[in-house]
């Protein structure tokens, strides 16, 4: 049997792609597996990341930051004189030097009436996490700057620290922001957000089973391969500072920097060049962004900072870090009737861009997942602690929500002795119920067919035969587990009005522009910002699908506020659903205008133009009236032409007269150089769209994991990982699968390997890749990624986001599989990551308890 398993896996690994990806020239159609146009320059080492940027004519000065080694400490004294005197040192500043010109950092998702702890780019009096900046050095090179940091004399008074969100809420915990405590908040609870629906107490009274569990979504490091980096250069001619920034949202950064530094926005240009991974952590404003830009203005020089790997661990936002106490009520047949949860979500020492919304909305308001659960009692506590800020990380709240509900559904099934498949089916929102407003009232799901999707996953994984195999292996002392998780999530922000009510200040649109050069090449501008997703490839497919021109004729401009005037950025798996929809609309408008141009040239009305594959032609079956009108127009034009020629000796541009066809390139040229234009039309082919979606779109899916647990070592071997996602219509199956693979890797990392641990005094136990276990290629199983397709009517493309599903649904699938494997041994709970030692210790604890209870029953029997 074991040998068979190995062969099965080997053959899967070696399986060639069902359809070979098309080459770049075949690209340009919606739904085709076009290969990424971005790859070549990366494969050839021609990528250009922020640290590669060289400002014209000068070497950048290097900025480095003195960071607090303490999680919580008062700065008693700071003396920079020695550092300032070092050769090559240009500037040494502390928090006190900056208060006048540099405002505090703002967050973008500030809950109504929520106080905001003041977050300065350099802390002046108190450091509140290990890695918080307390002074900066600008020097002629990185080495001098690093040496100068060591010459700064600083005295700290170390204070008590708290890094765990649950412990931070307990009486007696040290307080992170005493200036707010008692005035606007209590202790470390920045905000309490309740959600109530139905009558939970009644549901609880009537329940046949009540299952409770405390869950933990550990603190995670996003860990992009490219650490954060900022390069700002000053142009004395224009008085503009150009900021290269490894960012997911250059336009938002421009706005935020203008506010914090109090400069006119037109004096800032933000460019996100190649970005080596973001995962939500490069979405928000950081102190270093502010400091580098401020120094470029102050010194009128180019200034740069590139994070070291350790700095990236310490100062870049982390993700997750929730403690959840959950209670779930069900009837005997497996119908879930109520859900109660108390969530303590860590925000860190300060509030980052979207920090508060992650636990409160992205998790706390979508806890019911794919199920009809009418009675809710949810309390989310937004906690301040002495860690770096915690904010969006791939999934951002939905992994925490999905883990909660999906592991609890399995617990209900185990308690009732039901198949977890059946419990899911029983509680699914049925396909007929969409659009469906969930109990929290925060979201209205657009479309879904959960049973169909679940069935597909069960079929691929071979659920019945896996169960049979599990039974056989158990008899031989081997522990196979099958774990399922079904999810939905919201993507494509999305309904700016609604968001604004929750204090979200981004708005919900995306900007797209399609323009045609006089030679017929097409330029696509988008306000989103790629971090490796392959946006350009997909956007070209969307636009070329409308314009029916070769992909090679299109280019994409993205991530530069100087070339793309507006934008919100890339997050919430929104680029295709919102950015793509904007471009689709722009392309359609552009084609409509091109048709009018072509019609004008050919002497017909736009209705009589047929467009296909770069050729505008006159409809064969024109009405007699249209034919007559064409003859008339042609005659008029000929007459006008003759008059011009006769009187002035010049020839008006008359490309299409007398012809039945005109090419895309000719229309492009005419659009710019016609003598006369059709009524009401301006020259040019250039359409700009601010696309504002009606609402979010809700992808969903089923992940199935098959694991074998080695009960002697605690090792979890992931044998199968089946991901069946439904993201609506698929623009590029190859890239969609890539997104699933990447997300699944990060999900597997959370399930099995990763956690940011802190010492009692608040120091991270690992601040490099030697001590923090990101999943590597060797940790990954073959991922069987498939799709069902349930379109949405909330955008014209029928697409939903796919960027985060893998990290949302993989952890509960794997944890459920491991608990399923170990259920005969009596193991009922494990916290992520499922490190072998923890698995082993849970097994021995369960065995001990079981033998104790057997003893108790035995002795009881004797007594009676």
């Amino acid at each position, binding site marked *: 049997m074991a040998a068979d398993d190995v062969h099965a896996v080997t053959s899967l690994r070696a399986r060639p792609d069902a359809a070979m990806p098309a080459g770049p020239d075949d690209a340009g159609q919606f739904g085709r597996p076009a290969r990424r146009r971005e790859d070549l320059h990366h494969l050839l080492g021609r990528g250009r990341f922020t640290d590669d940027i060289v400002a014209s004519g000068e070497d950048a000065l290097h900025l480095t930051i003195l960071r607090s080694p303490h999680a919580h400490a008062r700065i008693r004294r700071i003396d920079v004189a020695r550092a300032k005197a070092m050769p090559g040192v240009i500037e040494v500043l502390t928090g006190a030097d900056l208060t006048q010109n540099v405002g505090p950092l703002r967050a973008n998702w500030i809950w109504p009436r929520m106080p905001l702890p003041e977050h300065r780019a350099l802390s002046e009096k108190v450091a509140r996490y290990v890695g918080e900046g307390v002074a900066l050095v600008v020097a002629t090179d990185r*080495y001098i700057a690093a040496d100068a940091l060591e010459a700064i004399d600083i005295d700290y008074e170390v204070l008590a620290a708290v890094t765990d969100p649950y412990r931070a809420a307990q009486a007696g915990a040290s307080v992170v922001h005493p200036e707010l405590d008692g005035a606007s908040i209590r202790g470390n609870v920045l905000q309490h957000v309740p959600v109530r629906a139905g009558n939970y107490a009644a549901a609880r009274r009537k329940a046949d089973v009540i299952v409770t569990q405390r869950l933990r979504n550990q603190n995670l490091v996003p860990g992009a391969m490219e650490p954060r980096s900022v390069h700002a250069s000053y142009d004395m001619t224009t008085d503009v500072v150009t900021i290269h920034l490894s960012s997911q949202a250059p336009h938002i950064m421009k706005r935020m920097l203008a506010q914090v530094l109090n400069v006119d926005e037109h004096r800032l240009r933000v460019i996100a060049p190649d970005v080596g991974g973001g995962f939500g952590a490069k979405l928000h404003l950081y102190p270093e962004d502010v400091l580098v830009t401020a120094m470029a203005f102050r010194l009128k020089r180019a200034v740069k900072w590139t994070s*070291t790997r350790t700095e990236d661990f310490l100062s870049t936002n982390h993700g997750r870090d929730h403690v959840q106490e959950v209670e779930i009520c069900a009837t005997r047949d497996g119908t879930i009737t109520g859900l109660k949860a108390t969530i303590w979500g860590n925000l860190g020492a300060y509030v980052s861009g979207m920090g508060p919304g992650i636990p409160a909305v992205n998790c706390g308001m979508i806890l019911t997942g794919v199920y009809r659960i009418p009675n809710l009692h949810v309390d989310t506590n937004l906690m301040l602690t002495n860690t770096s800020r915690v904010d969006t990380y791939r999934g951002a709240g939905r992994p925490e929500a999905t883990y909660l509900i999906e592991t609890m559904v399995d617990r209900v099934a185990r308690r009732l002795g039901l198949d977890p498949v059946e419990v899911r089916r029983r509680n699914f929102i049925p396909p007929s119920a969409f659009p469906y407003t969930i109990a929290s009232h925060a979201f209205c799901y657009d479309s879904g067919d959960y049973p169909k999707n679940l069935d597909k996953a069960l079929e691929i994984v071979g659920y019945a035969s896996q169960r049979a195999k599990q039974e056989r292996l158990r008899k031989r002392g081997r522990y196979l587990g099958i774990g399922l998780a079904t999810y939905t999530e919201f993507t494509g922000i999305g309904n700016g009005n609604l968001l604004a009510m929750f204090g979200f200040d981004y708005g919900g649109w995306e900007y797209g522009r399609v323009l045609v050069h006089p030679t017929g090449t097409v330029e696509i501008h988008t306000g989103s910002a790629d971090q490796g997703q392959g946006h350009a490839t997909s956007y070209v497919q969307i636009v070329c699908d409308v314009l029916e021109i070769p992909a090679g004729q299109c280019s994409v401009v993205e991530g530069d506020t100087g070339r793309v005037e507006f934008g919100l950025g890339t997050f919430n798996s929104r680029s295709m659903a919102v950015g793509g929809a904007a471009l689709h609309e722009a392309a359609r408008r552009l084609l409509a205008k091109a048709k009018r141009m072509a019609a004008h040239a050919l002497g017909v009305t736009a209705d009589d133009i047929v467009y296909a594959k770069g050729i505008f032609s006159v409809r064969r079956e024109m009405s007699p009236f249209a034919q007559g009108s064409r003859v008339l127009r042609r005659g008029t034009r000929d007459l006008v032409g003759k008059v011009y020629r006769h009187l002035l000796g010049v020839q008006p541009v008359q490309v299409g007269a007398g012809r039945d066809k005109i090419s895309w390139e000719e229309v492009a040229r005419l659009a710019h150089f016609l003598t006369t234009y059709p009524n009401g039309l301006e020259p040019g082919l250039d359409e700009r769209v601010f696309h504002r979606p009606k609402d979010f779109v809700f992808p969903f899916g089923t992940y199935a994991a098959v694991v074998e647990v080695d009960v002697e070592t605690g090792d979890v071997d992931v044998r199968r990982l089946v991901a069946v996602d439904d993201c609506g219509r698929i623009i590029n199956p190859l890239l969609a699968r890539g997104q699933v693979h990447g997300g699944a890797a990060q999900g597997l990392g959370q399930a099995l390997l990763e956690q940011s641990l802190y010492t009692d005094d608040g120091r991270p136990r690992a601040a490099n890749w030697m001590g*923090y276990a990101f999943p*590597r290629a060797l940790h990954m199983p073959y991922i069987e990624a498939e799709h069902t397709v349930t379109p949405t009517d909330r955008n014209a493309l029928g697409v939903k986001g796919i960027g985060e599903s893998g990290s949302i649904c993989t952890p509960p699938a794997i944890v459920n599989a491991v608990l399923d494997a170990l259920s005969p041994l009596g193991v009922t709970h494990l916290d992520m990551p499922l490190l072998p030692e923890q698995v*082993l210790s849970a097994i021995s604890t369960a065995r001990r308890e079981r033998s104790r209870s057997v003893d108790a029953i035995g002795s009881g029997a004797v007594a009676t």
Partner: protein
Amino acid sequence: MISCEFEYCKPDSLPALMQILTMYPEATLLAGGHALLPAMKSREIRPERLVDLAAIPELRGIRRGSDAIQIGAMVTTAEVEHSSLLKEALPLLPDAAKVISDPLIRNRATIGGSLAQAEPSGDWPAIALAVGAIIHLTGVNGERAVPIDDFFQIETTPAGNGLAVGRRTVVARSEVITHVSIPLVQGEVRRSYLKRMHPASGFALIGVAVALRLDQDRRCDWCRIAITGAASAAFRALKAERCLVGTAISGEIIREASMLAGEENVEFIGDPFGSSAYRRQMLPVYLRRALSTAIESALV
């Protein structure tokens, strides 16, 4: 991640290196750099002078002699992995090289560097112990050969320059490992290396290297077992070895020997990926599995 200033030189022969070490006995030797450079970048250590060993031909190459194999100190793990000579003569080494971290690291990490660094969880120390390697050293005062059993030393006082070299091994200041020789044992020798890779560092969370010879009656008449990742230095599981030598190999004897390994008087190390208790618990499991693999392959 920004090192302090240092001098750098790159001698092109062993005599040239000795000249440098005569002039600068405190100089720090740079082999593959995987331990040294990260420590320099984080400023944990601040050597004033680096001597790069990369251009010294005497430290390179894998050769087969009549009764031993010689491996130059600057031979990379990747070279070991792909050496056809070793695949034929001592396949344990290429097999072990395959499970050392990842290909990028294997391309730079050297066998001499790993032995000199003597990381508690390094792979080569255990493998060198299991194959009974002889470490050849050259210093300003001459040459010497140290059996691997005498090579590692567990000392707690750090050396003046903060480097592990000289702290965990007998390599003296101004001394360099030139090569390692591995005696070829006659007879039916079976070897295996079983490692649990640390998911973050790629080192051994626990690694067990075994080499044993079976006579015609399946009796073990020679055996070396070495453990890494468990204690502050690689060590031999002498109790287990004694248990195996002279006995006919069976499932029971393997189990018994494995249990004995867990009773070795060493202080186990731990981290969040495996506490000392867990590593102690895993040692018999890994030894049993490593021995079973070696024996099974002997029977095939």
